[in-house]
């Protein structure tokens, strides 16, 4: 069956990604050189940046799948949006926890109005709204449509949020805004980051495929149970 194949492929991807992340952890602890300016804390960056990247990737999928759902009303598009949104919520949480931890040491404060941090916080709440809307509307079809609208409107707002937060920073420059990426990045650091990015992306895509096929299977199952119930009573 097709959904079984999707599930197997998803699981394989997850395991490959987990292997890459384990390798990344080994590299972070034993192999990669310590960044001169920030010291050891800079290593959290190998978790933080891929976390952010997958969050944005997830949001992209949610927005596209939601637009497809509104357009075609195809259950598969909605299932894809839900699966990606759940991943986004998790990876967004990773980003939101690791960011301030790094910031506490690097910048001397847990929270700073760093553009990407602020943007992710607002995105994370948009994901939250996505699930709250879905779950709280009596008619499931309407709930799905509302959630899709929330995702689309949320993604349209990203440029404006971005402008507002970069503006804010220019008004109030943070303590020392260090950008670890850029031409100064040590080749070994770049390798570690790439391994981590690959690992996170594979885990996310794997979970996404896995979750997507489960979602479809669960819906089919619920429908079948309802039909059996109706048949038994008729």
């Amino acid at each position, binding site marked *: 069956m097709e959904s079984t194949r999707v599930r197997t492929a998803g699981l394989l991807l997850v395991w490959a990604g987990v292997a890459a992340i384990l390798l990344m952890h080994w590299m972070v602890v034993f192999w990669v050189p310590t960044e001169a300016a920030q010291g050891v804390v800079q290593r959290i960056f190998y978790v933080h940046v891929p976390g952010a990247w997958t969050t944005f990737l997830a949001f992209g999928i949610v927005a596209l799948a939601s637009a497809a759902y509104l357009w075609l009303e195809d259950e598969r598009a909605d299932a894809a949006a839900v699966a990606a949104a759940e991943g986004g919520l998790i990876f967004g949480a990773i980003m939101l926890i690791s960011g301030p931890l790094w910031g506490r040491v690097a910048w001397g404060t847990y929270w700073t109005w760093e553009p990407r941090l602020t943007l992710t916080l607002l995105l994370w709440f948009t994901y939250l709204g996505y699930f709250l809307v879905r779950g709280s509307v009596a008619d499931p079809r*309407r709930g799905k449509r509302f959630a899709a609208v929330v995702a689309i409107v949320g993604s349209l707002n990203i440029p404006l949020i971005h402008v507002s937060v970069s503006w804010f920073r220019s008004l109030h420059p943070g303590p020392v805004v260090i950008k670890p990426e850029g031409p100064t990045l040590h080749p070994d650091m770049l390798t570690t980051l790439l391994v981590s990015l690959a690992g996170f992306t594979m885990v996310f895509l794997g979970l996404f495929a896995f979750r997507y096929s489960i979602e479809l299977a669960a819906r089919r199952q619920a429908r079948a149970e309802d039909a059996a119930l109706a048949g038994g009573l008729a």
Partner: protein
Amino acid sequence: MTELRWTWLIARKDLNLEFRAGGRLLSMIAFVVLAGFLFGFALDKGQVPGRAVVASLTWLTVLFASTAGAGRIFDTEEEDGAFRHVLLTPVSRRAVFLGKTVANLALTWLITALSFIALTSFLGVRTSGSLAAHAAIFLPGTIGLSATATFFGRMSRHSNLGDSLLPVLTFPLLAPLVFFGATASARVFMALPWDEISSLVRLLWAFAIGSVAVGAVLFHHVTDE
């Protein structure tokens, strides 16, 4: 033409109902005046000069008041199921959205004016000579606010979380609007030249036009079954 006429019909009916019911209007007026009073009362003006915070507080008061009122935009429609019958007439969903946004906008202006007066007077901030600049900032700001509140107010009517859902949905969206608005208003209070404000106002207009356009295009997804 028909669209405009429909929009006007809906807006006029809403305002008519609003003034006849009175209660909601009165409670919102009380809310903004009391909020202004509490801000003035709670702030230690020896530590924090009113001029430094009055812009942010005004924008936040307007944001909270309009979010609190957003769910009720559709209350009169649901009293005895009137909205179903409105949707069954040939009226376009776009016109329904625009009409309700216009009515809501009129109320938001009232609230904005009141909270502006309340906060500047309770915080003892002088506004002489800058009222036109303030109005030029609040105009696009309130349009964006009203359109967003109308759109999500309809959504929250179908949710069993009701009005408690609204802040989760609207605050992330309105964050840039409040930021642009509060920054621009603060610069007027600091008597900065308009050149340093105009780009913020342009962004506010971008938000206003964007939210009205997106709302008009997507509104049928939140009304139709």
